[in-house]
């Protein structure tokens, strides 16, 4: 029966409205979690506020349980959902660059939107910088096309790479999460 909008021919206005409403909830969760604050966001790498780690990793774990559960039950047709293709070289480079951009700007792209929405001038400047960066990437595309396309491995998941059932991996993620949270909580209390 799902994904609903890919399987049923619903009107486009309903699609747009549902996407905006989904965004409203997304923005609300980011804001209420404190991700409008650069102090909170950068705290994850100054080891004095681990909210980013806790929200992100809990989101990943809950999300993976839900998505794979609905997939195994047949509620979501796994062939019709979008799973990001892997370009392992390019994405590793992207991750390394992202840490630099995040620590210089104090935000990630989604949190820059909510922070600008509540009045942060710095977040607005980050957005302008991002638009300039997007322009730069496209204009210089031929220069870094080699890196961009390097390491293409298709639509592969961790369970395919490691040859292990996805529930074993999700179970491992839960264990890692609990282990990490116990240590982080002790560290924050110090």
């Amino acid at each position, binding site marked *: 029966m799902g994904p609903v909008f890919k399987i049923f021919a619903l009107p486009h206005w309903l699609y747009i409205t549902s996407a905006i*409403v989904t965004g409203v909830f997304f923005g609300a969760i980011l804001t209420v979690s404190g991700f409008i604050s650069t102090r909170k966001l950068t705290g994850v790498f100054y080891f004095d506020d681990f909210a980013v780690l806790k929200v992100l990793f809990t989101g990943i774990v809950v999300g993976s349980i839900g998505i794979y559960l609905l997939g195994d039950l047949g509620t979501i047709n796994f062939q019709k959902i979008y799973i990001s293709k892997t370009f392992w070289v390019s994405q590793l480079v*992207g991750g390394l660059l992202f840490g630099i*951009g995040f620590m210089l700007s104090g935000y990630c792209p989604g949190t820059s939107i909510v922070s600008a929405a509540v009045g942060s001038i710095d977040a607005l400047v980050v957005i302008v910088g991002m638009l300039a960066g997007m322009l730069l990437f496209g204009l210089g595309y031929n220069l870094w096309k080699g890196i961009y396309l390097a390491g293409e491995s298709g639509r592969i998941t961790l369970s395919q790479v490691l040859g292990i059932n996805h529930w074993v991996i999700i179970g491992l993620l839960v264990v890692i999460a609990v282990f990490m949270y116990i240590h982080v909580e002790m560290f924050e209390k110090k």
Partner: protein
Amino acid sequence: MFDKENFLNPYIGGILLGLLLVLTFFLFGRGLGASGTFDRLVAFFLGILAPSWIKAHPYWQKYFHSGHTPLNNFLVFLAIGVAIGGFFTGKIMGKTQVQVQKGPRATSRERLIWAFIGGIIMALATRFARGCTSGQALTGGATLAAGSWLFMMGFFISGPLVALLVRKLWR
């Protein structure tokens, strides 16, 4: 459930985010994302300035295959919602304030210059990674996409290292 700054307990926030992600997959067959919107905005404006050039551009042409404007896209509608949701939640929490956020030792000028440079680098990063914290770390992470976990690895390696260099901006 809320801390002294009125922010929600991060584990509850994480659970809500995870549930929203599952619902998004159930409804739309795809996850959350943010960075794509900025690229699409740039492509949209270039499309007005130089329509035939961009439709043949090696990178941006992908946004014009459908025949619609690049702004007619899930991520763009989602981003509009994010701004609305952020604003009203901030309003309810009493957190709307025009300000420049920075550490006590940084000047506003320094902060804004680095914000701009950081924004440029972050945009480049999202193109190589095919997404950001929302599209890759959260969504890709939850679908167990292999490249998304590599992205996170890179992010959690360079982040703490750069943090040492720019301490004056934030603490």
